Structure formats: structure tokens, C-alpha cells
């Protein structure tokens, strides 16, 4: 598989840091966006993305051009984001609901800023309910739903990014969809009336 990044990656593999700068510039938006959907906090997302790019540079000699560079670096960033979330839980030993509360606060802040279809008077309320419902999903359910519907990855690609089977990804998608649909049932009915 050949991509426009290949020349830059080759140059970076031979120690050209400017080539790697160009790769970072080209793909940091996509990487930060994916990470933000997993960790919720904007500052954490920027830190995780930075760590992922540095780690990618460190491992660049192992890159074999079997996938696009952006897919490879996104996979590193997702793994880093998921382990950050896991370390948080272990470190703080929080009860699940306290942890979810903290998540809701962070993730909500990100999702409130997202543009949503105009629902008139119900818009803000719907956005908040949507953000709360998203925050209540597990990390992997949320990651799968957002990678699918916001970043438009195929399920097969998401399975590669998360390092699990395609069937497992489907299961996450079904669970996430079911939970979101149930959580938004009241607002959906209002939206139809309006």
C-alpha cells in the first residue's frame, strides 16, 4: 500500500526530523480528535497525542508500510489513551460511579461544543443529554461509536485500531447504540413533536 506519507516516513526513518514534523502537522488534528473522544479532557488529549507522536518516532524503525502512517500512529494513540484511562482507575481506586461522574464532567465539556442538528428550543437540552449518555458508555463502546460515526472508519479498521476481533467491535457498536437510544428516548419523542 502506497500513501502520500511514504516519502516523509522514509525520510524520518533516516533521521530527518523535519519530515517527521511534517507528518505531525498533517495528522495531529485527526489524532487529537480520536484521543479526545476517549479521554474526554482536552488537556489529557493533547498530552496523550504528544506522547503518541514521540512514541511513534521512537518506534519508526518498526513501521513496515503495511498500513497508512496515520492509521499506525492513531493505533498507538488509542492504546495510549486507553491505558491512561485504565491507569487513572487503578491510581485513584475510585468507585465506578465517582469515576463516571468525573468522566461526565470532562466528556460533557467536549461534546457540548460539538455542532448538532438544529433542534430549536430543545437543542441545548438534547446536547447535554447526548453528552451525558456518551459519557456513560464504557471507554471502548464510546471509542467504537465515535470512530465509526464521527471518523467514519470501517468496523474492520476499528478492530485493527483497538486490537480486537471485528465481531467484538460490532458488539461494542450494538451496545453503544442501544444505550444511547434508550438514554435519548425522551428527547427523541420531544424532537418528533416539535
Amino acid at each position, binding site marked *: 500500500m502506497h500513501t502520500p506519507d511514504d516519502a516523509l516516513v522514509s525520510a524520518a526513518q533516516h533521521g530527518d526530523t523535519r519530515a517527521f514534523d511534517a507528518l505531525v502537522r498533517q495528522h495531529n488534528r485527526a489524532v487529537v480528535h480520536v484521543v479526545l473522544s476517549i479521554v474526554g479532557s482536552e488537556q489529557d488529549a493533547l498530552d496523550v497525542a504528544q506522547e503518541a507522536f*514521540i512514541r511513534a518516532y521512537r518506534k519508526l524503525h518498526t513501521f513496515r508500510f503495511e498500513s497508512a502512517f496515520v492509521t499506525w500512529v492513531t493505533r498507538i494513540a488509542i492504546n495510549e489513551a486507553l491505558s491512561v484511562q485504565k491507569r487513572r482507575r487503578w491510581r485513584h481506586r475510585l468507585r465506578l460511579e465517582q469515576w463516571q461522574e468525573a468522566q461526565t464532567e470532562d466528556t460533557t465539556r467536549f461534546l457540548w461544543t460539538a455542532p448538532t442538528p438544529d433542534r430549536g428550543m430543545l437543542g441545548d437540552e438534547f446536547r447535554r443529554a447526548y453528552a451525558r449518555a456518551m459519557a456513560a458508555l464504557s471507554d471502548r463502546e464510546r471509542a467504537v461509536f465515535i470512530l465509526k460515526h464521527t471518523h467514519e472508519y470501517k468496523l474492520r479498521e476499528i478492530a485493527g485500531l483497538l486490537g480486537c476481533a471485528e465481531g467484538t467491535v460490532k458488539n461494542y457498536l450494538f451496545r453503544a447504540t442501544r444505550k444511547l437510544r434508550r438514554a435519548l428516548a425522551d428527547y427523541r419523542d420531544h424532537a418528533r413533536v416539535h
Partner: protein
Amino acid sequence: MRESTEHHLILYVANELDADARAAAEALIAADPEARAFVDDLQTMQQPAALPQRVADQLPALEARVAHTLRTASVADPPWRAWLWPENTAGRIWAMRLALAVVLLTAGFVLGRQGGAPLMPEAGVAPEALLAQAPQAGAGYFDGISDIHVDPLTGQVEVRYQTVAERVVRGSPADPAITALLEGALLDANNPAGRLNALRTLVSTAAHTPAPDAQIVDALRMVLTEEPNDGLRLQALRALGLLHSGHTFEAPAKATVIEVMLNDANSALRIEALQLLTQNAAGTADLTPYLEAATADTNAFIQRSAERLLDRLPETIPNR
């Protein structure tokens, strides 16, 4: 709507169907208003969340930080690093074992010359001493559970785990060291066999456990929320139920079971959760809204069970 139809339509909206399956979905949507409404709902939920502007504004600073790190720190691995700290996990474990062996040999040599006590425990060391070495989560080097065995006659649990060498801890299921190891096994994302083994142990020893341990209950809740494997989640539900025999669910555990009953994609798990809730909190009025929601489940068995349970509740609820 049947569960398989729901899944078919979810994949349709996700643009993951081949041409034939897509045509079948479109025919269904055209013919069935319920399917049409379902697809409308799914499309409403696909929020195109753009990257917030204040994050986008920080991207140049991110680029600068990465560039600065690449140029100032020795980011690239020096050639000797691969020898001392290999890329793969197995290699790293061997490197750590080697390093520890060198430290132990050196310390043993020094202490031996000073006439100090031997470093390694003698054979037949007291179980209490081993229990004291049970790993605390996140502390020290701990390389996972290798085996868990339950003695069916005594109800005693034996857990083998890896540090630099294999260790064994034996005790009752309520023993703090055993509980800590089982919790560790349940939360070990990289060891599904260990998770299964810990769940089976909890199921088979629940009768010997006087009261549910809060840490184990939290770990089971985590399994129910995060575990991708339906079979393991089903075992977690059963373990949660058995551990609560004769005890009422605390609110967090109850909330997790309700969440499974209402939202799990697998109907077997929803059925198990419904039965668990009604056994544990039968006759309690606060289950009513959840049972009412369950009457709209896609699974006919769940619908009928929830309706039957609601019919038994009027004595405790004046408004029904």
C-alpha cells in the same frame, strides 16, 4: 422489533452491509414504519462532533512541543537499548528476571560474606509469610495469575501467580490475600483465561463467602461494564447474584444489573439480569419503572417476564 433486525439496521446506518443486505434493509425500512422510526433515531444519534476550536488552536503548540522533544531529548533509542530493554513483553520479562537475578546474587554474596540471613525463603515457609507477599494492585512487579484452584471438599482456594517466579497462596475465599488476587485477575485486561478462572472460582465458592466483598463487587461491575466477551459477562452476573444470596444489592451493584437488564445487546444477559434483580429485590416498588421499560424489550421472553412480575407488584404499590 427483533434483536437481529435491530442489529441489521444498525449495520445499515453504519454503512457496513454488502449490496444484497443493504437492499433488504431498504425494503424493510420502506415497508415497516417501526424500522423507519428506528433508522431515524440512529441517524439522529450520529453527531458529527467537530474538534473544539480551543483545542484546534493548541495544535501548533503541540507540534512545537513534539519538535522540541525530538531535537533536545535522546528520543531515538540508542543501539544498546534493544539489548537491555527489548521491544516485546517477553523480552522485557527476561531482561527484568536477569536484572533481578544479578541483584539477588550480588546481595546474597555480600550478605553471605557478612554471615547474614539467607535471602530466599526456605522450603516449607509458613503460609502467613506467603500471604504477606500477596501483591497489592499497582505495586511491585506482578506478572499475572497463572492458575486458580478450588478444593471442593474444604472450599479452600489456591492461587498461583507470577512475580519473578511462581508463587502460591492458599486460603478461604474471604481471605484478604485471596480476594486481592481474585480482584487482580478480574481486572487483568490481558488475561481472559485468568478472568474466566476467577469468575468460576467466585461462582463455586460463593456459598463459603459470608458477605460480598466490596472490592470484588466493584471488580464484577467493571467486568459487566467493560468485558467484551458475553460468556464472561454472564459468569460475572451469576457470581454477583450468588455472592448476594441472602444479602440485598447495594445501590451501585443494583444500578449495574439494571443497566445490563435494559441495555445489554445480548438477550441472554438481559434475561439473567432480570431474574437476578427480581430474586434479589423481589416485591420492591422501586423496580417498577425498570420492569415497565423491560416490557418494551425486543425479546418476547423478557417482555412476558416483566409483565408477570409487574402483575405481582400491586400489593406493594398503591398507584397500580
